[in-house]
Structure formats: structure tokens, C-alpha cells
């Protein structure tokens, strides 16, 4: 109870950041919207997706990619607090040891929910449509948040275990190839065989494909594991990632005392 309360107070700190410095979250939202418009309108005509328009294919992918890019926010926020001594101040206070991570989870999940809402709104404006039923659409949103939640623990771990600025930089750089090596922008079936094999096993691909399915959008997958089990994979990946990185994060937090 005490830990939940402290976690919420630390979450509120981040929410207050939005109020005091609204431009930071607004710019990061604009970035996602620009990416959406750029790919949707610029490349859309050149990319052919069987069973629908490119925007219908792209938008669910962009949602999944945005969830993945959140990893960067989490890592740099954790690393920054450690560097500035704020984590140490929290650790010297009489609060539960999970409070710091809980606060991070609360703030980042709230941030991601807002990002999803803005992107979905933006998508509807440029002609994206949900053709599935409401329950499936809700499940799609949950799967997206599940991916964010799982990667959040990767960010907490990286931020705690490697406090330096170089970690944040590495995450910022690596996130692009990993994000693009997925079915976010194009179907794996248009790729060379070996590349498609890698892409199919990218957790972002699983979420993107599952969300397309649930929203009733073209999936770009006609056969193989993504076509058959996208939703199962989009549940399994976040569960697996969380199962590995949540304990690792807890371990890294304890290691601060070493």
C-alpha cells in the first residue's frame, strides 16, 4: 500500500513535467505524427498491400513502433535520475523499494496511452478505418500497451544497470534498425527469405500484425506463423520479455547497493 502510494507520487512528478514543459511531450507526439504522414502519404502510393490501402496497413504498424520507441524514454529517464542523484535520494528515503520502478511504469504507461490516442485520432483523419468490432479493437489497444509495458522493463533494466549516457545513445541508435526490421512498414512477404525469417520473429512484427488483424486491417501476411498466430505471439512476446526483464530490473536495483 505504502509502495503503491509512493509509486503514484513519483508518477505525479512526471505528469507535472508535462505541465511545466509541455513542449517535450508535444514534440515527441509530433514526431510520431510526422512519421505517420511521411510514410502514409509519401510512400503510400508506391507500396501495394493486397486487401486494402497502405494507410490501413501502416497505421497499426506505426502504433506498434511508437510503443517500441518508448523504450528510449524509459531508459533515458532512469539513467538521468541515477546520474543526478535523484535515485539515491529516493533510495535513502523510507519508501518501498519497488516505488521508483512503479513510478516510472505509471508515468510511461500514461504517456503511451496519450500517444496511442493521438495517433489513432491522426490515423482516422487521414482515412484509416477500423472495420473490426469494438471488443477486438479494445484488445488491440491492450496488446499495444502490453508491448510497451514489457519494453518498459527493458528500459528500466538498461537505465539502472548501465547508468552512463552511452547507454541512452546506444538505445537511441539501435532502436531504428530493430524497429525497421519488422513488418511495421512493409509485409515480410516482400522481403528476401532470410530477412523475412528474422523479421517474423521481431516482437514488434507480432504486435503490428495482431493489431492489424484485430482492427480489421490488411495484415500483409498470408501464410506462416504471423498469419496463423499473430495474436498469440503478441501476447507471448510481452509476457516473455517481462518475465526476463522485470526480475533483471529488480536485480539491478538491488545491485545499486553493491
Amino acid at each position: 500500500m505504502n509502495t503503491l502510494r509512493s509509486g503514484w507520487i513519483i508518477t505525479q512528478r512526471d505528469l507535472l513535467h508535462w505541465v511545466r514543459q509541455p513542449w517535450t511531450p508535444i514534440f515527441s507526439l509530433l514526431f510520431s505524427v510526422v512519421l505517420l504522414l511521411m510514410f502514409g502519404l509519401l510512400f503510400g502510393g508506391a507500396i501495394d498491400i493486397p486487401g486494402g490501402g497502405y494507410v490501413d496497413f501502416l497505421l497499426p504498424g506505426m502504433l506498434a513502433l511508437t510503443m517500441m520507441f518508448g523504450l528510449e524514454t524509459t531508459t533515458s529517464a532512469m539513467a538521468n535520475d541515477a546520474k543526478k542523484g535523484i535515485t539515491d535520494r529516493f533510495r535513502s528515503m523510507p519508501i518501498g523499494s519497488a516505488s521508483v520502478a512503479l513510478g516510472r511504469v505509471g508515468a510511461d504507461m500514461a504517456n503511451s496511452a496519450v500517444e496511442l490516442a493521438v495517433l489513432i485520432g491522426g490515423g482516422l483523419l487521414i482515412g484509416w478505418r477500423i472495420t473490426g468490432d469494438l471488443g477486438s479493437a479494445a484488445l488491440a489497444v491492450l496488446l499495444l500497451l502490453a508491448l510497451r509495458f514489457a519494453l518498459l522493463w527493458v528500459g528500466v533494466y538498461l537505465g539502472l544497470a548501465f547508468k552512463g549516457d552511452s547507454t541512452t545513445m546506444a538505445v537511441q541508435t539501435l532502436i531504428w534498425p530493430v524497429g525497421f526490421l519488422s513488418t511495421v512498414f512493409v509485409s515480410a512477404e516482400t522481403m528476401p527469405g532470410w530477412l523475412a525469417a528474422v523479421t517474423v520473429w521481431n516482437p514488434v512484427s507480432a504486435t503490428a500484425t495482431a493489431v492489424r488483424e484485430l482492427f480489421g486491417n490488411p495484415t500483409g501476411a498470408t501464410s506462416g506463423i504471423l498469419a496463423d498466430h499473430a495474436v498469440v505471439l503478441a501476447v507471448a512476446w510481452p509476457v516473455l520479455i517481462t518475465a526476463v526483464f522485470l526480475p533483471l530490473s529488480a536485480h539491478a536495483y538491488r545491485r545499486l547497493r553493491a
Partner: protein
Amino acid sequence: MARDHSLTARDLRKRYGDLDALNGFDLDVEAGTIHGLLGPNGAGKSTAVRALTTLVDLDGGTATVAGHDVRTEPHAVRRSIGLVGQHAAVDEILGGRQNLVMFGRLFGLAKAAARARADELLDSFDLTAAADRPVSTYSGGMRRRLDIAASLILAPAVLFLDEPTTGLDPRARNEVWNTVREIAARGTTVLLTTQYLDEADQMADRISVMNHGRVIASDTPNALKRQLGGDRVVVTLPRAEPLGPAAERLGTAVGGTALVDAETHTLTFEVGAGVVGLAEIVRALDATGIGPEDLLLRRPTLDEVFLSLTNATSSGTAPAADKEVVRR
């Protein structure tokens, strides 16, 4: 029952790889006093503070802070302490008031109580005018004051300050000194680490000198200086007077050894007992016909204390290179 405001550490040990950051660290701090932990970079001061504030686990030894065992009752220790670390650990985007309210609520205060306490602290740290500005616009001294205020929310029994004036200008440093003195005057025990000898001398009731992970001397500032022998008489000579010959002649006359400092053109003599020693030097100056520009009687400085203590415990440390001892 009165709260226990004292601190004891016995044989603390902490190893980082090949380095013994704490190597048999002992410390006793009496309730309500300011205790200075003095030592060079890498002596283990910060590790000692981090161990006593439950931030790092010890490899050995026992420590009690405000009556609670650091290893077995870390939560109780955290309720009794305030920590001011080397960085001003406050949120830079938030305002001063928002910071204090947040930390107050984390210390368990209800919203209204946290706000009231924040206002009190802002007022007593002279931050009310800047309370709602983002901390990123604060000066270094203001940030430090906010940092200290945040550690005083629950009126801790023991306050730890890890090099609180590093990086501050002299004026801000003075502000911090005054603040710490006021805190101690209200009964809080203060453990302060510093690399600045004058800071420890100014602030502390007792000083523990630390080197290579352990305390090598612990006493009042005056007693520490006395340990190094008597007072010093500093003779400033006119630039025209050659130092070497003067040092020899005066040294012979008083039966002592002069420390020669060419830069300030001074001779420093260690003398037995203050004024008597001064008189001896004056007579020797008369007898040798050397006319000094200035004459000063002083206690040994903590620099001198520190150099002699660390030279005694660490082999291979060179004596201060810019000074040479002339023997008679």
C-alpha cells in the same frame, strides 16, 4: 523517550574489486554535534556516508545511526536521517515548492501537511520568492539550499552532508555553512565530509581525518593541531634579505629549524609555547640584526596536520614539494 541522535561505526569494511574503500572504518559521533570527515579524493568518505545512509551494503562491521542498526533496520534508519549527496538531487523541471511537496509526501506526509512543511522550509531557506520557478533557473547556492531543505522535511536526527560546498562560490559556501550551523544548533547531529581543511576547521566540533578507507586521527580541531606540536611563528623578511643565511642564523640562535617558503619570502618556526616562543624569536632577530617585515604567531593549519598524518600512514607520499626544510 528522547530520540537517539548519535552515530557509531565499528570496523566497517567495503571492497570494490581490488580497492578497500572502507578498511576498518571506526567512527563515533556524539549527539547534537557537527562532525567533520576530512580526507582527500578517494579516501573513502563518500563510501562511508553511503554505507551509513543504507545506500550500499557493507562487507563487514557494524554501524548504528540514531539507535538503529544500518544492516538490520535500514528502513528505521531511513526514517531518521537526511542525506545531502554530492549532486543537488532535486528535480530541475519542477519548482522548489513542487520538489519539497513531492519529497514531503514520499516521507509519508498528507498533501496539506506536505504543503505546509514546504512553505515553512522555503521560508526558512529564503527560497519563497523563487518557490514556483523551475529549479533549473536557480543558482548553485539556491539549489544546494533546496537540496538541504528537502533532507530536513522530517527534522532528521542525523543529517549527512557529502561535500556540500563542492563547486560553490565563496558566498554560497558561507550560506551553506550558516545553514548547517543553524541545523546543528537545533539539535540535529551532522556528519559532514569535506576535502576543504578550512571548512572542517570552521564547522566541526570534532574532526576525523580519513585516508585509505580508515580514520587515522579523530579529535577536536584544536587538539589535532596541538598533536602536531607547538605554535608557529612566521617571519616575513624583506625581499632584499636572502632567506637561506637568515634561516641558518635564526635557527642557530633559537635552537630550531625553519621552514623556508621562497614564494612568500617567509621563515616558519615551530615554537614550544605561544608567546614565550614569539619572544624567543624576537630576541633572536635582535641578536642577529635581521629586521623582519612582519611577524605572526599562529596555530598549525589543518593542512599541516593532514600532511603530517598522511605522511605517517602512507609510505611514499612526497612532502610538499615547494617547501624545503633547512637544518641547522
